[in-house]
């Protein structure tokens, strides 16, 4: 591992598509994820982005961070916009009005733009079978508008609309299982990823782009601002999310589950939770409840992966 700094740069292109100068917060895991994902996607890409942190930080007029064609229209319609892009390109190529070539059509959105307000448009696009990649950057709340809860916010987390109070533990519902919802559409490729595992994530994005038909990648993106943690913890927290079994990395290829990283023993959830202010208020018994749920969910996933 000593020579890591020497050989890693050779494994991944230096060329950036999501370039510096954007206005993401210090230590933003979502911006890191987008940057790496873009390296994996390459130049022959068209991106449709939903309203959210990554859109706002990257495109204040008259500047842009995007070196590939990029379009933002609204918050909840990104999958539909991508449907139109894909269909338009297909017809223009068929009619010979633009040259035949492989262009990856990508839709990106946050967890809110995906699992809440954009779920209907996403479901429609997945069901119709457009050839596109959908990337959900999950920072577990509506960060752009000031850390409000989403259906992807974990149980017990305090946000500005699920505050912890005398009679509330914060978020009272369990995180919506968005990858399972995507997989339920019987699309060819679904995966979870995290920039703390950069090569795994980039490989999955490449695989998604090469998949004919719809592909969905759900990327856990640490948000120090919203998670109330130090700004140098994005990588560590992403690793802990995986090592505790809270956010397992897996693929669902043509309906078959495959666990990409398994651990002989999962770390306790407290290892992950104690580093974040959003869980600070939780009592022992609530943490115990979360631990039980994580253990059970992980076992279930593992079983599914064994069955294939």
């Amino acid at each position: 591992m000593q020579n890591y700094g020497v050989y890693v740069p050779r494994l991944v292109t230096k060329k950036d598509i999501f370039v510096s100068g954007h206005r993401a917060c210090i230590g933003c895991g979502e911006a890191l994820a987008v940057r790496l994902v873009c390296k994996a996607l390459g130049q022959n890409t068209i991106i449709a982005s939903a309203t959210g942190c990554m859109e706002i930080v990257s495109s204040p007029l008259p500047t842009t961070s995007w070196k590939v064609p990029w379009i933002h229209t609204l918050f909840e319609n990104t999958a539909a916009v991508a449907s139109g892009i894909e269909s338009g390109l297909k017809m223009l190529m068929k009619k010979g009005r633009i040259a035949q070539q492989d262009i990856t059509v990508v839709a990106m959105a946050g967890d809110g733009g995906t699992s809440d307000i954009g779920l209907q448009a996403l479901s429609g696009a997945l069901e119709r079978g457009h050839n596109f990649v959908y990337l959900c950057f999950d920072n577990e709340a509506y960060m752009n508008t000031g850390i409000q809860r989403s259906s992807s916010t974990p149980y017990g987390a305090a946000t500005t609309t699920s505050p912890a109070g005398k009679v509330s533990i914060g978020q009272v519902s369990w995180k919506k299982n968005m990858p399972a919802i995507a997989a339920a559409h019987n699309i060819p490729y679904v995966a979870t990823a995290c920039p703390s595992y950069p090569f795994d994530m980039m490989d999955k994005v490449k695989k998604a782009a090469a998949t004919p038909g719809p592909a969905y990648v759900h990327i856990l993106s640490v948000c120090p601002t919203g998670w109330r943690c130090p700004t140098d913890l994005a990588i560590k927290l992403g690793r802990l999310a995986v090592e505790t079994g809270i956010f397992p990395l897996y693929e669902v290829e043509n309906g078959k589950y495959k666990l990409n990283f398994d651990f002989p023993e999962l770390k306790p959830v407290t290892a992950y939770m104690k580093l974040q202010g959003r869980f600070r208020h939780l009592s022992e018994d609530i943490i115990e409840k979360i631990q039980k749920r994580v253990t059970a969910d992980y076992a279930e996933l593992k079983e599914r992966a064994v069955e294939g």
Partner: protein
Amino acid sequence: MADRVGIEVSVAIGDAVKQANVDVIAAYPITPQTHIVEHLAELVANGEVDAAYIPVESEHSAMSACLGSAAVGARTFTATAGQGLELMHEVLYVASSMRFPVVMTVANRALSSPLSVWGDHSDVMAVRDTGWIQIFTENGQEVVDHIFCAFRIAEDNKVLLPVMIHLDGFHLSHVIEPITFPDQSKVDKFLPDNKYPLPLHPDKPVTMGDFAPPIIYPEAKWAQEVNLRASKEIILKCWQEFGEIFGHHYSPVERYHSEKAKVLLLTMGSFSETAMTAIDKMRGEGRDVGLVRLRLWRPFPFEELRRAVEDAETLIVLDRALSFGGPGGPVCSEVKAALYGQAKKPKVVSFVSGIGGRDISPGDFEEIINKGITISEKGSPNEFEIFGVRE
């Protein structure tokens, strides 16, 4: 010119869209627009239209898919009505603000609640200020002709704005009319390939739909306004050329016996044909009445309207939508605003009628005109008159 055929107007729209060689259709069904999108789906299924048909899961997604399709430079069509138009609402602003030449037919329908599938102009009025070019049609031929004109205007690189073609739900969408379809070679010449100036393509990356801080947003919006106003000139040119080639002539404001008539009725949409019957009858009885029909709703044809009504003493405006708690029918408000600063102008009387699909007969129009004359002479305590509604 090809032969005249008797055909349902909705089906004729599909056939015209086919002739326009559309690339992408994204649509969601809603009465009374359904026959349009069903016919298009059938044409695509039979390979008669070489287009992608995206059967989206909502109107919000229909218009959103249209944004994506137009952004890559594909010729893009959709159709909707009533609730569907309202569900599209926020996307409509984006289509015009991002300068996407989408063409949409709207089979005008009343809004819930109570649910009504029948026609009126409530749906249009709610999207009045979305920045689209909006044209009201009177009959099937006019709708078909405007499919070609709308693409031509929308895709003109000096315009690049979406166009709504309004046709009254059922009263126009579902009637069988004699319609002439132009020769394909003439259509192809009149309507060349869509050449969107900066499409999304990896060869030349562009960033579209940025966010604008206060230092730039007002300029962006003002540019949009200037552009929509300027589109009128191109619309007029398009109509002129269309008339020269195809023999059907269109103008922003249509006049029927309106020159020097003392009393004028103003309508929008297909009810003007019924109104004409009333006008004919009244003129036959020696009454000095005429009709003005507004075809171009946005950009609003201020000059043409002023010229059309300046010699009249009374102008009776018929609206088919309510502006709840407001000054009367939305069309009448605009007409009044257009005339307010004029030295020479008629007295304007506002009537609202024909909402939720209720008919207005020639006899009703006569009554509206007679009542309107009385009100303009004696005045009325009301901001506007509701006609044909039980109290």
